[in-house]
């Protein structure tokens, strides 16, 4: 059966709609990623690491993005140990890929090199599926 133009348009339109929707989603994700990189601040993706059991070391490949309003010498610092993960010279933005390995959540900050003031902060949260509790040490128990 031959369809008239009106019906053809009606039938084909879901295809157009899908194309437009996918394009918009892609554009949105690209814009969002670009936005993350150019926002003033420090961002991590992904921000959560999930271990099987509480207390277990959690592994996660993460990417830091940061952006500042002025060029300068900046360092990325892990705040619990004060370890410097990476420094940049005379730049306004940066990206750093890191293999996160920890059993606990960690906080990170961007600082001016040789200074202690935190310009921007973020964190990686460690969560788990099974909570683990230490059985109390005891001797024989009676009912």
């Amino acid at each position, binding site marked *: 059966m031959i369809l008239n133009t009106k019906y053809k348009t009606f039938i084909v339109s879901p295809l157009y709609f899908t194309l437009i929707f996918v394009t918009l989603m892609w554009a949105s994700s690209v814009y969002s990623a670009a936005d993350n990189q150019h926002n003033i601040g420090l961002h991590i993706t992904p921000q959560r690491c*999930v*271990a*099987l059991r509480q*207390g277990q070391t959690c*592994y996660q490949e993460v990417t830091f993005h940061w952006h500042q309003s002025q060029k300068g010498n900046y360092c990325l610092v892990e705040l619990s140990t004060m370890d410097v993960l990476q420094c940049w010279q005379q730049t306004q933005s940066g990206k750093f890929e890191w293999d996160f390995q920890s059993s606990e959540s960690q906080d990170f900050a961007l600082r001016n090199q040789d200074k202690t003031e935190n310009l921007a902060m973020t964190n990686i949260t460690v*969560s788990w599926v*099974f909570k683990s509790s230490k059985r109390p040490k005891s001797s024989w*128990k009676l009912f």
Partner: protein
Amino acid sequence: MLYSSLKKRSLIAILTIAFSSFAFSADIARTLRTNSQDNNDPDNFLEVGLGAGAFIGSSLKDADGKAAGLGVNLSASYNWKGFFIDVFAETGEPIIIGYNAYNNDVWSFDVVLGTTGEGVSEDTDNRFIGLNERESSSMLGGRLTGYFGENILQVSLKHDVKGRSKGTVASALLGRNWQYRNWNFHGLVGLYLSDAKFNDYYLGVTAEESAITGLEVYDGKTSVTFNSSLGVTYPISENWIYRATVSFGSDFGKKDSSLFEKKRSFYTGISNSISYVF
């Protein structure tokens, strides 16, 4: 696809294969899976999942001893002041009620009461019409578990206090877990002993039963079977986990019963599941 060529099986067989995680080599499997160490155990949990599995071994019903399928699995554990109840929690019995009587950093001793699954009955297969029904047994005993870093040793001894089989079973399991990034692997080997009374109740065929059913007379004997499994568990998110297990073991001493339609000296199986943890 592999499964498409296999016959459709009973729901019970499929559920047992795919979702009990091959309970023959269980009891400490859950501890190993969760990568627990130093006598740490997970708290209360409830899991509901979807899985698939395939199995080749001895079978009471099927001529080829092969099975595969999809199914829903459920497992749970509740602990309160030393008392615990495990339901389909990768243990040898479907339900175990117990009490943790002793523990220190290395050793733990539990008094346990478990029910075995039911044995064959007339409903199991037409071949068994006229056979006396084998009912579940209540196995009371103890299990001693030792935690040595990433290695776990467990020995158990249980006796049927319900009095149907008056049988005794014992097991010795050795397991180890290790972690590669967020993948949690475990290996487990075990020996299981069932005495002649236990095997005779579930697998024996009396002369009277033989006369009615045509099955060959069989007297149960003491058996020792070997069981092993290798598995991996991966946390997909805080509530979702993926599991895969490959199992291998022997059926020596049991497969000779005339109740088995297909007798194989060894079994092997594979299962996969995705579960939601509440």
